């Protein structure tokens, strides 16, 4: 288990004793001569940093790089030691920021050179560091909670980086022994606490600081990273730090080791030089990328560095090429930023085992040419994902966003013909409003109205005998007759709406409307021509035995129909074939003259589905066997209000005053 490796916790212990106030004796010129400087001005004396300043700068630089490359899960606890210890932050992720640490360090200030050196010691800080390493982090706590019975598998390891002035080898050994002893003591205490963990492993890094010695500090860098140069076209290098895995292929291939080098253990050369290469790439290209690692520039504020990072932060990408043993070059990496973070992408540069596969058109379904590509594209856009904030307890309510996305996909695909010649309704612009609404989880009243309008519009088209985009694929001759076309169209629309009837009562109402409006059997067609009034009367007579609900909705729709008459006049010509050039030609361009044509016997089965006919028959039969329940007779949309008499007696709504009733 590597989840909590040594680098999960790093305790910095910086010596704040009086001798750290000493100058490092490295002078920094800060009054540089500039071009437009008047003659004869003597530059100011250079300043020199104290050992303390050097130590703080270097530990801050360590944190800067650490937080750039590992923004989470690699934690720092900063401790300062003088006559006592000062803990500047906690292991909490929220405390992990250089800004916070800088503020805390400013409050500590430089060491006081006049303090009694006898009272001051680095040991205070080391003890605090060991205690701190025993403290459980948020991540460890979370892991222990999730693992429950296996909680003991969560390990507790860490590193102490101590910046001090070691007086002698004996002094160093004393510090090591002290840390060792303190760990043993603290581990005993940790056994009996929930908030403490025993330290299983601790790496102690002692950094000795002394005047004249700048190198020891500056060269200290996180061990896990290595450096990499990006040589820009203008001949300057940008050195970047990142996780070493980004060069795995390079290391394994042996390209890192020049010919003749024998020892692999002598330490990897830590810097790989990659060259900025000219082919630009764009974000719409999907590269085959085997890893992506955050980077941090070594010299963050240098001109070349900020040039490169700004270029990347502005959304552009840089391809990098790598020299090979053979002398050839290969594009091996890509620098690119995502959300203000720069990543080094590792590109696959070996031969692919997937080369030259057969095209998808050679496989199953590859010969089909009229897929609804545009429609499915539209479907994909509607089903794009978007991030939602992580709210506690959302799992319980069944509102995990991804689960909702899956549910939406399920609803949207309940009826989804894949090819143009398999569908009529999805080739009709007139159906679009209904088709896009019916898949919704819930409908508003307005949605229902729009669906109904769509349906009436179709009724109107049928009345006018408008042509439909019915496929002729696989049929000989002119294809089906006009009324047969409408029968097919209504069947399909019913199928679509029926798949959603269970979603809500409003979905059901849309289905009711379809069932009520869809074209009547052929014999009715004739009657229709003889006048709507009579048809209505006959219709009522025919349906006499049926429940009042469907009757009501029929009447309702008739009423709406009249109201919408004018709108429809305009809509009628909006009929367009929507999708691909492969769509069949609209049929029967010449007006049909043989209206009186007698229908073949089978077609007389009419537009009502077998299920509907059967259900109607059963309902009729059943309704004759008993007297209808009074509630159902008086119901509105199959819902009857109870205790209506109470309302009459009290003149108030019983729901609102339930208690008063008793």
């Amino acid at each position, binding site marked *: 288990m590597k989840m909590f490796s040594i680098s999960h916790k790093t305790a910095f212990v910086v010596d704040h004793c009086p001798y750290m106030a000493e100058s490092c004796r490295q002078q920094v010129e800060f009054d540089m001569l500039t071009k437009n400087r008047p003659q004869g001005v003597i530059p100011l004396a250079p300043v020199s940093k104290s050992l303390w300043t050097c130590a703080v700068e270097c530990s801050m630089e360590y944190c800067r790089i650490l937080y750039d490359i590992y923004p989470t899960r690699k934690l720092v606890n900063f401790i300062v030691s003088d006559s006592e210890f000062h803990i500047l932050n906690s292991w909490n992720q929220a405390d992990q920021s250089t800004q916070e640490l800088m503020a805390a360090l400013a409050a500590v200030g430089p060491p006081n050179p006049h303090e009694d050196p006898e009272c001051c010691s680095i040991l205070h800080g080391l003890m605090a560091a060991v205690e701190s390493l025993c403290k459980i982090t948020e991540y460890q706590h979370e892991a222990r909670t999730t693992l429950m019975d296996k909680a003991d598998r969560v390990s507790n390891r860490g590193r102490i980086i101590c910046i001090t002035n070691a007086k002698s080898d004996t002094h160093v050994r004393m510090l090591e022994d002290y840390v060792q002893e303190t760990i043993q003591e603290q581990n005993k205490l940790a056994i009996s606490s929930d908030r403490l963990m025993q330290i299983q492993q601790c790496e102690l890094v002692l950094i000795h600081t002394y005047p004249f010695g700048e190198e020891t500090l500056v060269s200290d860098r996180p061990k896990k990273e290595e450096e990499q140069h990006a040589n820009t076209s203008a001949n300057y290098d940008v050195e970047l730090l990142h996780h070493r895995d980004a060069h795995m292929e390079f290391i394994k291939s042996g390209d890192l080791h020049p010919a003749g080098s024998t020892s692999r253990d002598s330490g990897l050369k830590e810097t790989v030089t990659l060259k900025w290469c000219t082919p630009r790439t764009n974000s719409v290209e999907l590269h085959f990328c085997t890893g992506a690692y955050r980077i941090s520039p070594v010299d963050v504020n240098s001109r070349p560095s900020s040039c490169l990072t700004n270029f990347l932060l502005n959304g552009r990408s840089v391809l990098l090429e790598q020299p090979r043993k053979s002398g050839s070059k290969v594009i091996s990496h890509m620098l690119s930023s995502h959300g203000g973070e720069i990543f080094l992408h590792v590109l696959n540069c070996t031969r692919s085992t997937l080369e030259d596969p057969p095209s998808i058109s050679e496989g199953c379904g590859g010969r089909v040419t009229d897929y609804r590509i545009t429609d499915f594209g539209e479907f994909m856009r509607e089903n794009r*994902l978007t991030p939602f904030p992580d709210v506690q307890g959302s799992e319980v309510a069944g509102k995990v966003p991804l689960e909702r996305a899956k549910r939406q996909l399920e609803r949207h695909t309940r009826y989804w013909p894949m090819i143009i010649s398999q569908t009529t309704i999805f080739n009709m612009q007139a159906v679009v409003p209904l088709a896009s609404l019916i898949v919704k989880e819930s409908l508003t009243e307005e949605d229902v109205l729009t669906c109904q309008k769509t349906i009436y519009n179709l009724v109107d088209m049928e009345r006018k005998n408008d042509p439909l985009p019915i496929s002729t694929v696989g049929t000989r001759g002119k294809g089906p007759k006009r009324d047969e076309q409408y029968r097919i169209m209504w069947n399909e629309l019913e199928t679509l709406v029926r798949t959603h009837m269970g979603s809500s009562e409003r979905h059901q109402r849309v289905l009711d409307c379809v069932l009520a409006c869809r074209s009547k059997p052929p014999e009715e067609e004739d009657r229709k021509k003889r006048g709507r009034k009579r048809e209505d009367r006959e219709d009522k007579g025919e349906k006499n035995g049926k429940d009042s609900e469907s009757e009501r909705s029929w009447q309702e729709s008739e009423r709406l129909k009249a109201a919408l008459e004018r709108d429809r006049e305009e809509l009628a010509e909006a009929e367009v074939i929507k999708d691909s050039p492969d769509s069949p030609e609209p049929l029967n361009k010449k007006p049909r003259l043989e209206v009186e044509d007698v229908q073949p016997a089978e077609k007389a089965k009419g537009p009502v589905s077998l299920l509907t006919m059967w259900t109607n028959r059963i309902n009729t039969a059943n309704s004759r066997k008993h007297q209808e329940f009074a509630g159902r007779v008086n119901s509105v949309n199959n819902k009857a209000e109870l205790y209506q008499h109470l309302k009459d007696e009290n003149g108030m709504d019983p729901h609102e005053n339930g208690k008063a009733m008793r």
Partner: protein
Amino acid sequence: LVSRPPAMPTVVLMDVSLSMTRPVQLDGTEEFQRKNLAVHGLTMLFEHMATNYRLEFTALVAFSSLWELMVPFTRDYNTLQEALNNLEDYDKTCLEPALQGVSNIVQQEWGSTCPCQVVLVTDGSLGIGRGSLRHSLSTIKHRSEDKKFPLPFPFPAKLYIMCIANAEELQNSDTLDNLEQLLSLNGGEGQIFTVEGPLKLIDQAYTPFHAVLRCGNLSSDVQVFPRPEPVIMDEEVDPAPRTILTDLEIVGFIEIGDISSPPVLSRHLVLPIAVNKDVDEMGTGTTDETEEENSANQMAGKSPNFCVLLHGSLKVEGMVALVQLGPEWYGMLYSQADSKKKSNLMMSLFEPGPEPLPWLGKVSQLGPTSDAKENPYGEDDSKSPFPLQPKSKRSYAQNVTVWIKPSGLQTDVQKILRNARKLPEKTQTFYKELNRLRKAALAFGFWDLLKGVADLLERECTLLPDTAHPDAAFQLSHAAQQLKLASTGDSQYAAFDHNITPMLTDFSGSGSSDRDRM
């Protein structure tokens, strides 16, 4: 970080030493040369692959005391078969150089990250004395760096050993011990088979991966090629191999620009397959069957398939489909075109985990856009909710102060000076830079610098030309005085969060143009 699941080319390493011509007696059958049995077994393997793994690359290497690449990596199983039938007999068995040869061939062709299967076919007599496997293994610990034993291979490899010998023969020698040692050198990846080997090998290593790809109620039967191998996450508390589901469910769609070249473990072709197509397990297809299969293929070609629809729309729209591979494991489907403009439906596997890509956030928190209060893509598709912004900015995206190199400090001082000379126009920038320096100097305990810069500003004040704006002198001496106060460490003036503000003078209004730009 992760054991990578592979695309899996195969190297067949065939023993052509003289001992392979020894007869083997199987119950109730006539005598065969071991070589004949080996060729027969490999023929079965090649036929199986030609039927089920047409896209797999295979190479044939023959070895005795020397080794030779008979057929480089190819998908042409006829060539492989032909070479197999025409193998000649040579001298003795020297396995080590042959394995080294395999290692070189694979690395040259596929690099060191592509996993491979090595099928070693031998009679189990692995040589005597120098050059024998026993000798190689006994000296393994005393090698110099450049003469290292070729195992473990530098690439992930499964070593399958087909040993053409019966159990009795193996029991009477140390062959099995040596071969097992070879396997353990390869990290235990692989298996040893005896005479019945080929069938088991086919079962073990060359079963095609079939799955159902779903998008709501739309679905298609597919073969995923190459076969996705189990993945082990080292970072988990309880690492167990994870295998992708045979029910691959699309959870939604994302623009290519938003998913932005994500790192993946492996790539696979997603090939639609016809249902109810009985694939002959042994692949011993006669001509008739092949014709039948062809016509079946033609039929399948003509019935609509969801993969083809999905591929077409992904290609046209420049999008990918996010697909769930298992619990907290996701991948993406997209259209991939090769140089010849042939294109295909591909699936890439992300690293297992709840948040494989930082710029998408937790995958379980991705939901339908219709749930959002307003369309995150904008009404005209001009916006995108991706990439997700991290909580804190990285050092290169904010104005950090680093003075480890003198140049860093010098640049910052110069910036202040440059602005000082353009007072009062640059009042705001001057104070902004001044405060940045002040904060860093306080944090680093670098009070001497504060004094130094104060001196510098005072000197600048004396050098102001007569034409300078009177406000410049006021601001410079005010700033210098404030820095001096801070350098005392007096808590009243040296507070980190305190900012030096411009001195209010009668002329202050003149800096407004600069202020507007800030």
